[in-house]
């Protein structure tokens, strides 16, 4: 197996599979759309061609099975039913597994026989139907029909045909390399399949009238970015697979780069940013006396900023990549649960750092599965409640300044705080005494505790008590923020906010007595002059009255980090107002763009996001305000509960 070809093939094949899955779901929603079918054909056809070059026969066979089935669909001799779509999606999963095996340098196994049989039966059923139709109407021409068994070729035939193609190419068009064009490749594949591979029949070819599609699927996928059913325009996904002029232009203007190389560039720019900070800091001491140096320092600052922004953009990816798996999740889970769900996706074009896109795939799936299993009611139940039978789940990406907000909301029955608290007591996560003292929001947030689940029985969808804590931990690891809001009978919204980029972290340096720390600017709402008269005690916790209608927890960083509280009035102190509370520090020093270095050696959980090197050349710890406030609040509640327990 040629490793180089494999490395080129795998990412493209995975993209094709993702597109194929999306198209399969769209086909289910719009079974009459021949363009979608054509695109789907083309995706498997291209997949098969590449697999042929790699001599991955199992993969070729599976792509071929699917082509067969799709071929029958193209003939409109069979309807697009949920069972057919299940077969196609199952086939996609098998091919995805095979690609993973190929990535390991191993030969894929033939795949599940049962599914292969199902696909064959679906195709065979069509064959039978065609025969019946032919008998009933002998004058009807049978067009575009290709056999399934006879178009298989052996590896030897394939190599011989490839040799013929290569030897023929120079006479047709002089070439300096042994590469073949897309057209030649397509022609070659056509020749292999006897003048037309399955699925390469013209979309406009007349065909037998299609039977009526089966009942509507249980889930509907609606994308705000592109909604073919709404605007009637053909889908565009297939165009990237086709060798259309537009596709060529796109190919010419884009370049596939190994993510590791991008990471290396990002790390180097990070080092450059740190060096810039140190130079700026050092130069500031002599700038007044040297105008030239001051100008050079300013220009370098701007250039490094530009470079940093450019590299940041290189790592940005549209949320579409993150969202494209969701329709399948909703479809499969809703069918399994017997619920009717419409999925609305908004903001696919919003871009976010690649690391976030990569890391958020599983948490988003968890959120959706939780919504489907716990939040959404059964259709009959919804009707009884006066709600539409079809529930709605909305997944949205919203660009907010230096952040991206990803919201998952449903119109289900919301979260019952009392039920959650009772379940937490039952599972031993909290004591009954603690449960009575919880606010509604605190009780709801118990769902993020490891091991929590309100489902008594474990299903494929949920109930194992893993998932929501993973969502919270992933959010934290990505320097994000998680908010949950719920309204009884109306639904739940989980909002995840992430910094636009993880390459550079703007921080605020602060002093706590003699030590310097940093706080991410994204978590800071403002800086306050502390007025001791605004400090109060509430339920054993220090709180601060920011203004007439805003009272927040007051967390003394001296107490948390030095085990010695700052003495208000006696020691110089200032307040940093964060999303979670007001942090009391000795002095705020200034802002800087920093590069985060991970603190892998610290035990979890801790209240540091990492470390950085300041412009002064000092190693500075970056605090995690959410963990610190949580620690402070737990510090209040734990002794109290301990006291109750004794």
């Amino acid at each position: 197996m040629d490793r180089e070809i494999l490395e080129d093939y795998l990412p493209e094949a995975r993209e094709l599979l993702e597109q194929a899955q999306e198209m399969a779901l769209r086909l289910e929603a719009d079974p009459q759309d021949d363009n979608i079918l054509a695109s789907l054909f083309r995706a498997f056809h291209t997949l098969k061609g590449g697999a042929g070059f790699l001599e991955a026969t199992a993969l070729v066979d599976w792509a071929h099975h699917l082509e067969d089935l799709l071929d029958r669909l193209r003939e409109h001799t069979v309807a697009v039913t949920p069972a057919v779509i299940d077969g196609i999606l199952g086939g996609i999963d098998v091919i995805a597994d095979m690609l993973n095996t190929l990535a390991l340098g191993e030969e894929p196994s033939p795949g599940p026989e049962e599914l292969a049989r199902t696909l064959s039966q679906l195709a065979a059923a069509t064959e039978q139907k065609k025969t019946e139709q032919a008998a009933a109407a002998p004058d009807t021409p049978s067009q575009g029909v290709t056999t399934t068994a006879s178009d298989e070729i052996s590896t030897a035939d394939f190599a011989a045909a490839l040799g013929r193609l290569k030897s023929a190419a120079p006479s047709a068009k002089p070439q300096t390399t042994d590469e073949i064009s897309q057209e030649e490749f397509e022609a070659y594949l056509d020749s292999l399949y006897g003048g037309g591979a399955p699925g390469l029949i013209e979309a406009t070819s007349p065909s037998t009238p299609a039977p009526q599609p089966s009942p509507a699927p249980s889930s509907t996928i609606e994308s705000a970015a592109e909604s073919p059913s709404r605007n009637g325009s053909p889908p565009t996904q297939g165009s990237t697979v086709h060798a259309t002029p537009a596709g060529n232009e796109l190919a010419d203007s884009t370049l596939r780069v190994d993510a590791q190389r991008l990471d290396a560039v990002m790390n180097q720019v990070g080092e450059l940013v740190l060096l810039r900070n140190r130079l700026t800091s050092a130069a500031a001491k002599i700038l007044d006396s040297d105008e030239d140096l001051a100008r050079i320092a300013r220009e370098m600052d701007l250039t490094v900023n530009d470079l940093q922004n450019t590299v940041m953009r290189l790592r940005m990816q549209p949320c579409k990549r993150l969202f494209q798996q969701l329709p399948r999740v909703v479809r499969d889970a809703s069918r399994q649960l017997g619920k009717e769900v419409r999925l609305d996706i908004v903001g696919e074009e919003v871009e976010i750092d690649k690391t976030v896109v990569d890391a958020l795939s599983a948490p988003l799936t968890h959120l959706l599965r939780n919504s489907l299993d716990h939040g959404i009611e059964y259709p009959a139940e919804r009707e009884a409640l006066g709600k539409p039978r079809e529930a709605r789940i909305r997944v949205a990406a919203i660009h907010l300044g230096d952040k991206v907000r990803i919201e998952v909301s449903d119109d289900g029955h919301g979260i019952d705080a009392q039920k959650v608290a009772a379940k937490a007591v039952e599972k031993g996560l909290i004591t009954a005494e603690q449960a009575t003292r919880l606010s509604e929001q605190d009780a709801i947030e118990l769902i993020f505790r490891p091991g929590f689940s309100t489902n008594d029985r474990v299903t494929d969808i949920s109930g194992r008590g893993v998932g929501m804590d993973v969502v919270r931990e992933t959010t934290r690891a990505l320097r994000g923020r998680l908010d949950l809001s719920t309204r009884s009978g109306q639904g739940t919204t989980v909002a995840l906010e992430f910094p636009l980029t993880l390459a550079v972290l703007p921080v605020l340096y602060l002093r706590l007595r003699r030590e310097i720390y940093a706080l991410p600017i994204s978590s800071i709402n403002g800086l306050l002059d502390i007025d001791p008269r605004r400090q109060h005690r509430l339920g054993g916790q220090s709180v601060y009255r920011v203004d007439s209608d805003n009272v927040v927890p007051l967390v003394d960083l001296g107490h948390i980090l030095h085990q010695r509280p700052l003495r208000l009035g006696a020691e110089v102190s200032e307040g940093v107002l964060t999303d979670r509370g007001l942090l009391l520090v000795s002095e705020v020093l200034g802002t800087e763009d920093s590069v985060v270095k991970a603190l892998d050696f610290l035990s979890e959980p801790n209240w540091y996001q990492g470390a950085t090197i300041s412009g002064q050349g000092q190693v500075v710890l970056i605090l995690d305000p959410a963990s610190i406030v949580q620690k402070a609040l737990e510090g209040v509640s734990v002794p109290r509960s301990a006291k109750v327990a004794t």
Partner: protein
Amino acid sequence: MDAVLQLVDASFRAQQDMEKSLRDIDRRALNAMILVKRHGKVLAGYGVVAQAFRERAAKLREAAAHLQADIAPLIEVQMRILQHTRLQDSILQMERRLGERGSRCASLADSRQTWAQRIHKEEEQAHFILRRLLTTVEKLLEGIEEQEYVVTNGRIEAALVEAVGAPLMRVSRDMGEAVAAVADAIHRYKTQLENLAYESRTDL
């Protein structure tokens, strides 16, 4: 004596006021920079203003520190002048008492003369420090004018990016108020210094 005590009081008050107001300016500038950072590149223009505001605030703090550095020597010199004037007065009284008895001590007259010269030198030194203080105060006021200019630029910039929705107009207004507070403190201190210069024997 009263003048010196008034100077000590005024210096302490001015020091407190300026320290608080300059810290306030710095905090507001930092607040503006945080706001800018949180909005990405959209408010980059205002970021330049906020940065300039903070840099000038740092210069003001530096100038205010020089002011503080001069106040202690001035008080010291004033105390010495007071002490030496008392010594000179007591020698003069001794001379008078001796004169009432019809006797005269030449060394006493000589000593008084020496003290008078010393006091004169100290008064010159106090005069020099006072002039330097007033010059520093003038520089501080110039710095305040520059800050006011930056604040005006900030208001223009805030108006230009009002559509973004960031509360920059309020931030600019807060900055303006903080600058006005420092300006007030410095003007009050300048008046105190001028009063001292007028009331003291030091002829400016």
